[in-house]
Each structure stands twice: as C-alpha cells, then as structure tokens.
C-alpha cells in the first residue's frame, strides 16, 4: 500500500497495568512444571489488569502518553480507532470513551476495531490513509486488551493486559511510515463466539498456516513494495503470542535475534493481544536512534498481518522523555497470587 512518504508517528505512548502473576504461580494451580512452560513459551510473568481497569482505561492512559509526545491539542485529532478483542461493551464504542476522556471535542470520526491481535495496526493503517490523503490532520490509533485465557488452558500463561497508542500525522513526525503491506486470509486458528468468555484455538494450527504464513507473507509484500532487503532493518518487532514464535519467524526470514531485543516485551508482560506488537514498537522507539529503520509486523488470528517500514527521525530525541517509557511501566509492579488474579479478572462466578 502506497503512503505519501511524509506521514508517520507524531506521538506514541504505552500503558501496562501494575499487577503481575508469575508462571510458577499459575503452574502450581494446574500441577504443571513451571520450568518446562517457561522454556517452552519464553515467558516468565504476565501483566494483569486490576478489577477497576479494562480496555477503555488502558486505552485512555496510553493515549494520554501519546498526546504528551505528540505536543498537539486534543481537539486537533480527527479520528480515533481502538483495536481490541476485549472491548468493555459489545455495543457502544470504546473509542468515544477515549475521545471524551482526552477532551477531543465532537468533531472526530471513531470506531472500534476487532481483528484478534492485529486490530491496533489496522487502526494505524486507517489513520495513515486519512492523514496522507489530507482528510484529517491527526488520527489516534490504539491497540489495547485485557486478554482472556480459560483457567487451565495453555493461553492462561500468556494472555495479558496492556496497550499502546499512536498519534499519526504529517507534521513533526518522530518516525516516518515509509510503507505498509498486509497479508490476509480466512484461516480459523483462534476464535471466540458470542456470549463466550474465553477464546478457543486450534493448538498447533496457530503456527505454520497462521502466524508464520501471514507475517512471512506481509513482510515479503513490504520488501517487494519498498525495494528494501531484510538486512536494511536495524530493529524488528513481530507480534508476540509467546517468545518462541517471533524468534522462529526471525530465523526463517534471516534476521539476527539481537534486532528483536529492544521490543521483546513478551517475556515480562505476556501477550497483550492487540497491544502486543505495538507495545514492542513503543519499547523499540524508547531506545531508537535517528535514521534507524524499524520493521513492525503484527499478526491477528483469523488471520492477517500488517507490516510497516518505519524510519526514525531526529525528533525522537526530544520527544522520548515527554511521557513515561515502557521500562518505567515494566518496573512498576506488584506480584499477585492466583486467587487474587482469579478475583480481579472475574474468573470467580457466583
């Protein structure tokens, strides 16, 4: 997909709730070997939203941070898209709660998006289209989730809470989006039917025909469109359903694993679904240097991947410290027991 070559990220911000649960704590409930799980998933602990937090509150806190770095008035925003698979309402948008909480006014278009774990990057593409065509000056794209995993399911070790927000515009960009490409197909690897609390997944089918095929496909399309080679990228962020998948994807594409290090948020935060790759992008931008080229590729089950070639500008240096970094949220933590986790996430029913 062609962009105008000027538009990009004007501000970014993340939010990670302060509660954490360790793999050992979950494994002790289900009689599993924590070392085997940690080695298998490359995840040590995950972030858990408090019982007074949900996708809307996470989205608002992340967006406030993005606005601080964007240095714009809230009413300059012309579009808000919130991507999530845990919107607080089935009918009633999260995006307008965000708009009201930020003081965006009333002159904006908004919608909630759902595409499993990639709805946030779909929001970035939508904002990019509106901004580069001149229809709006700034758009706000958010990926946030309080991810669900059924008690005892393998997902419970990774399904986490968190989010990230991006102000997309043409002026004062801290990172230009050079190009974006998407690869989509009807692949039922993971789903949640109406009225169901927890998703179901097709176990190993989530790998080869889903995650690897779609991210691989989107990255290939991106390289063809930009005439870049994979070695041109300095930093790489892939969706992180666990630690193993992105590392294997990197190996398949011939990317050194060191290039994933800055954005490898999964081992200490878990899989924040729509927030996952975008939190990784925030952590990468927190440490990025001007002129660096970042490859971002999300993945959403069902299935699709959005890939982006992002070039960091000189403005990163002055904007970085205007809001809390990912690391600051990472270090602000309180460990909880499985019982408290079950209460907080509504897993205890009357």
């Amino acid at each position: 997909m062609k962009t105008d070559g000027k538009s990009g990220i004007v501000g970014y911000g993340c939010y990670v709730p302060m509660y954490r649960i360790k793999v050992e704590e979950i494994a002790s409930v289900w009689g599993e070997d924590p070392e085997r799980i940690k080695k298998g998933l490359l995840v040590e602990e995950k972030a858990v939203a408090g019982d007074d937090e949900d996708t809307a509150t996470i989205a608002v806190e992340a967006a406030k941070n993005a606005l601080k770095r964007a240095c714009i008035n809230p009413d300059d925003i012309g579009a808000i898209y919130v991507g999530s698979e845990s919107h607080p309402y089935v009918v009633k948008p999260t995006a307008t709660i965000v708009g009201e909480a930020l003081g965006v006014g009333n002159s904006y278009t908004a919608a909630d998006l759902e595409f499993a774990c990639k709805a946030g990057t779909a929001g970035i593409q939508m904002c990019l289209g509106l901004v580069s065509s001149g229809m709006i000056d700034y758009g706000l794209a958010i990926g946030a989730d309080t991810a669900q995993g059924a008690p005892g399911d393998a997902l419970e070790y990774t399904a986490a809470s968190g989010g990230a927000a991006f102000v997309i515009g043409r002026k004062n960009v801290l990172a230009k989006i050079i190009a974006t490409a998407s690869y989509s197909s009807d692949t039922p690897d993971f789903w949640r039917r109406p009225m169901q609390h927890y998703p179901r997944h097709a176990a190993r089918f989530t790998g080869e025909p889903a995650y690897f095929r779609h991210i691989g496909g989107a990255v290939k399309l991106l390289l063809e469109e930009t005439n870049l080679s994979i070695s041109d990228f300095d930093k790489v962020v892939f969706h992180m359903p666990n630690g193993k998948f992105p590392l294997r994807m990197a190996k398949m594409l011939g990317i050194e694993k060191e290039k994933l290090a800055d954005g490898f948020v999964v081992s200490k935060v878990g899989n924040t679904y729509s927030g996952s790759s975008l939190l990784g992008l925030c952590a990468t931008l927190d440490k990025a240097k001007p002129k660096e080229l970042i490859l971002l590729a999300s993945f959403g089950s069902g299935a699709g991947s959005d890939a982006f070639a992002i070039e960091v500008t000189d403005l990163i240096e002055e904007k970085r410290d205007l809001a809390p970094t990912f690391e600051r949220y990472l270090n602000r933590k309180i460990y909880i027991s499985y019982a408290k986790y079950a209460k907080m996430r509504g897993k205890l029913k009357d």
Partner: protein
Amino acid sequence: MSHRSSVPLAWRRFEARYRLVGNRCLTCGTIYFPPKAICPKCRRKGKLEKYQLKGEGKIHTYTIIHAAPSGFEKRVPYCIAIIELDEGPKVLGEVVGDLTLLDIGARVRAVFRKIYEDGEDGIIHYGLKWELV
C-alpha cells in the same frame, strides 16, 4: 448487588469526572471542583469560567473502607482519601497503586479507571482515581 444510577445524570458529569474540568471565578480567582453553579464568595458579582485542573496533588487525609456500600463490596479493603489538588480544591476519591506508600502528604496523580458498573447489563461508570507516585 449493585445500584442503578441515572444515565443522563452521569452523562452530564463526564467532563468533570473524566477530565477534572472545574471552574474559576474571574472576580475573586477561586478555583472550584466539582464545578459550582455560582461563586459562593462573590454571589451575583461572581463570573465563573471552565478551568482545567492538572490532576496532581497530595493526600490531605484518608481512610480504609472495610464495609463498602452496594456495588463496591468486592473491592474491600480500599482507600478513600481527600486529595488536596495543587491548584487548591480538595476532592474525594479512591487511592490506588502501591498502598505501602500511603501516607498523609503523599503525592498522587489522577488516573482513568472504572468506578462501578450498573449491574451486568447497565452502563459502566468511568472516572478518575488517584495513583500514588
């Protein structure tokens, strides 16, 4: 059990509840939160305008709630405090975060949180809580 509240009443207060918009009297300079209909000091000579508070302050006093009103039972024990905002007004709210830091005079900042839900099928009430920094 949870209580049901008026949807229009909640909606009219979004600006104050979500964003801490109070008001200021142009005659005497006093800042009010929640916003007042008239300035109690200047009465008919007062002229009020909207005023955006920054959302930072310190704990003036606090208490720990163990016997909660309906709708809040599952949150006990939780901390309710009077926060003295940097601009002057005092507001009542819940303190969240690392409660080992809880103390009179401790610094807090406003964070957007879920306050309560009108049951499983009613609206969700959002607003500001105060996180220890």
